[in-house]
């Protein structure tokens, strides 16, 4: 078939797939985002049965599937688990490259969250480094209310 039309131009139909969404985040995540927006506090959840602390919060324990209803406050400080530096642009990126993004285990939590790492020399990025959350001035009750995590400067 391709042979018959090889001298012609291939044809395309161009367009978009555009779909607007308004997600309800649910009760627990609403509380999580409101605590960040109103008090600059990052919360996790603690499973009342197996006692693990999960962040971002889930309404069901990821280990024992017990129901979880209440948040526990975390310090906003944590440890870098892993990271990368993005050097390429894409249609979905929220930051201009180069920027660092990592998986951060907050003190007292058993799971880790993904977020940006700012105010850092990329060469100094290292698993295990201590980080603390920096919040945006204007906060809209979403994950970008946390501006990024930055290295904790004062040792000890």
């Amino acid at each position, binding site marked *: 078939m391709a042979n018959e039309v090889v001298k012609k131009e291939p044809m395309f*139909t161009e367009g978009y797939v555009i779909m607007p969404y308004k997600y309800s985040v649910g*009760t627990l995540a*609403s509380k999580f985002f409101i605590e960040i927006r109103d008090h600059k506090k990052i919360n996790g959840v603690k499973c009342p049965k197996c006692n693990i602390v999960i962040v971002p919060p889930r309404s069901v324990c990821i280990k024992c599937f017990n129901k979880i209803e209440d948040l526990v406050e975390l310090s906003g400080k944590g440890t870098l688990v892993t990271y990368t530096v993005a050097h390429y642009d894409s249609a979905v990126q929220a930051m201009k490259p180069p920027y660092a993004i990592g998986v951060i285990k907050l003190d007292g939590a058993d799971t880790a969250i993904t977020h940006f790492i700012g105010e850092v020399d990329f060469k100094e990025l290292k698993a295990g480094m201590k980080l603390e959350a920096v919040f945006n001035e204007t906060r809209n009750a979403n994950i970008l209310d946390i501006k990024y995590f930055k290295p904790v400067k004062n040792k000890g």
Partner: protein
Amino acid sequence: MKAKPQLELIYLDMTLKMPFKWNTGEPLGEFFRELKANEKIYANQCPTCGRNYCPPANICTRDHSRCNEKDKWVAVGPKGTLLTFFICEQSFLIPTTGEMLEVPFSVGLVMLDGAPVVLQHCLQETDVEKIKPGMRVEAVFKPKEERKGNIFDIIHFKTIKE
């Protein structure tokens, strides 16, 4: 589970927007080339069962026979007879453009002259009192310089009197 009335509930607004450039492949590509260059609408026929396709198909969806030989294509339309139609009065977001649909908006199934094939396209007439199955319609093409080789090279089918 009922939310406690005093709790503020958070919503996140996000819009998925993906740019697409779909290959039309063949013989659909040739159908669009003919629309664009010659204002011609083509159909073809399954050599086994005689079923007609518009736009032309490369295989018969009933018996899987090949039917993509261009010399067996027949030009159909641009006139035809309306089989059925709908009129949309409720606007909605058109996902391929992101724009709201202008209403009223009508679409018909048109049995094209020349072969027993049906093409689905927009109708110029949107007044329900003025549309009747069985009425005669004719394809209105965009001016040549505006045609891009897609189905909207036909603007719509207008009502004609014969």
